[in-house]
């Protein structure tokens, strides 16, 4: 894919704002979803041939979202263009394209918002920087709203707390509603509905892979660690990204979950139906898709009669589970409607529902139920990369910041040589690995370049083992 020549900047103690390269990323666009992909998930197949129809549909959708999501309206109104976000975005640091400054990316929508939804914009558009929605504007939205990984690093530095990801999600939702979808995300959503996971791994393939893992672990350790699938009456249902069944080194995570449950004597199962923790419905800002994907997990939990639901390592999956499963699926305590109670009666109230695998593991370590030979890791120098959605959109444990401490505690419990990265790139300030947000695979070259360029300074120049709680981070960092 042709694109701007991007070189990783030299390591500097204090980073400088890159030289502007206007429109350097204007020609790099995600693949557009085919009609077949769009129709498979109930979206309009393509843009209407009559522009006025598309225009009216897009503006109506924008109005609907502004009415429905109060945050979006506040974010449209409250930006003062102070620029605090500009050099916090890895896309901008990596490409120099001014439209990749979070403030400017939002402005693509804000200018249209002013034109149709504010009085000054309706009366004096040119005075207030308001513009009509044209096909060119819509194309620009598609280009730049798919050059945001919804990592929300900019939001940490915004004095008004504007959440760029919400704007990006709204932009994508409007694009989908007029038949202008992105191939990668929408194809994946279709696979989840049809087969059960992002990769499209059918039950027999899962079974075959898991059998192989049991053999491998037996060979490696001598222990009969089981990787059970669809076992009724197991205590724990583990839901993890399907990459854990398929790719290297993700599969090492899955192997690890099995070892933890085996060592602690906890009965557990994976599920064919709920073989995906990831939820791309969130990336495209579509509530119905988000819910439909999450409902598979509720259904599997009810069918299998499990007492606990544990989520494997996937950044955005944990955000969906932690922040949204409660109201989407009735997983999570507190609700007293019949829909929620049905599942609450079944799940064990002594455990957080859902729990993150790191929470489960850390609890077991504290109870002394897992023992390690730390010296076996002495040849490794290990650092921890906070995944965006875990760091900035969720929590682990029972206090604020637990999501930062618990994974580090686990690393320190199993190894002696832990090093922290640059303070400006850890915890809530973590840099995106470049993988998330649903824009990734179809734009792998960009994500790689931007990762190299923007994150290089955050990784110590000697090459440590990097541990993360996200499948995509694992791909990008490797």
């Amino acid at each position, binding site marked *: 894919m042709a694109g701007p020549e991007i070189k990783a900047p030299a390591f500097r103690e204090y980073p400088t704002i890159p030289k502007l390269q206007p429109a350097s990323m204007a020609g790099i666009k995600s693949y557009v979803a085919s009609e077949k992909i769009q129709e498979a998930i109930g979206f309009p197949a393509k843009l209407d041939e009559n522009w006025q129809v598309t225009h009216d549909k897009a503006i109506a959708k924008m109005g609907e979202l502004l009415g429905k999501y109060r945050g979006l309206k506040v974010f449209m109104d409250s930006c003062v263009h102070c620029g605090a976000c500009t050099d916090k975005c890895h896309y901008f640091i990596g490409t120099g394209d001014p439209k990749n400054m979070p403030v400017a990316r939002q402005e693509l929508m804000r200018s249209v918002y002013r034109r149709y939804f504010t009085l000054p914009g309706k009366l004096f558009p040119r005075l207030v920087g308001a513009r009509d929605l044209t096909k060119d504007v819509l194309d620009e939205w598609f280009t730049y709203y798919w050059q945001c990984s919804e990592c929300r690093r900019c939001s940490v530095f915004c004095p008004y707390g504007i959440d760029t990801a919400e704007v990006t999600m709204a932009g994508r939702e409007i694009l989908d509603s007029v038949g202008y979808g992105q191939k990668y995300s929408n194809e994946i959503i279709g696979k989840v509905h049809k087969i059960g996971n992002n*990769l499209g791994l059918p039950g027999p393939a899962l079974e075959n892979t898991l059998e192989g893992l049991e053999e491998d672990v037996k060979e490696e350790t001598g222990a009969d660690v089981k990787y059970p699938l669809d076992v009724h009456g197991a205590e724990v249902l583990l839901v993890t990204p399907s990459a854990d*069944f398929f*790719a*290297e080194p993700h599969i090492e995570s899955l192997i690890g979950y099995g070892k933890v449950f085996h060592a602690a004597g906890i009965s557990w199962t994976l599920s064919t139906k709920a073989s995906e923790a990831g939820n791309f419905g969130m990336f495209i800002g579509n509530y119905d898709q988000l819910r439909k994907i999450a409902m598979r997990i509720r259904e599997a939990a009810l069918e299998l009669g499990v007492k606990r639901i544990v989520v494997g390592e996937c950044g955005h999956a944990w955000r969906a589970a932690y922040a949204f499963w409660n109201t989407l699926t009735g997983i999570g305590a507190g609700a007293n409607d019949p829909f929620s109670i049905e599942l609450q009666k079944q799940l064990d109230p002594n455990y957080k529902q859902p729990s993150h695998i790191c929470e489960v593991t850390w609890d077991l370590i504290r109870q002394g139920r897992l023992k390690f030979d730390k010296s076996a890791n002495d040849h490794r120098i290990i650092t921890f990369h906070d995944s965006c959605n875990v760091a900035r959109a969720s929590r682990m444990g029972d206090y604020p910041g637990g999501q930062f401490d618990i994974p580090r505690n686990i690393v320190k419990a199993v190894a002696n040589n832990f090093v922290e990265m640059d303070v400006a790139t850890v915890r809530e300030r973590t840099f995106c690995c470049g993988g998330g947000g649903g824009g990734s695979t179809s734009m792998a070259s960009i994500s790689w370049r931007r990762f190299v360029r923007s994150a290089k300074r955050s990784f110590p120049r000697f090459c440590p083992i990097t541990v993360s709680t996200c499948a995509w981070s694992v791909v990008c960092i490797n």
Partner: protein
Amino acid sequence: MATIDVNGKSYETDEEGYLVDLSQWNEDVGGYLAQTEGVAMTEQHWEVVNFLRDYYNEFQIAPAVRVLTKAIGKKLGPEKGNSQYLYELFPYGPAKQACKIAGLPKPTGCV
């Protein structure tokens, strides 16, 4: 939709050059796709490609990288049963590049 022409016959591919209808695949198409990837096919390459196709026919999905390396290791000896060997054959990855040559769809998801 893009197309490729092999031996005077036209085959449909997606934007990234993956064959749309995998039943149309034959060794000539595989060889052509390998050429576009800059991979010079040898017997070892074909062994991997054929394994991928057999696995896909049985499971409707490409094998996990681990399943692939294990199968290659069993067939060709343990020194070849690792991802390094596969990356030497297919520098852009067994899952993506070898799948493309084998006429299988690109794996989707966080891989």
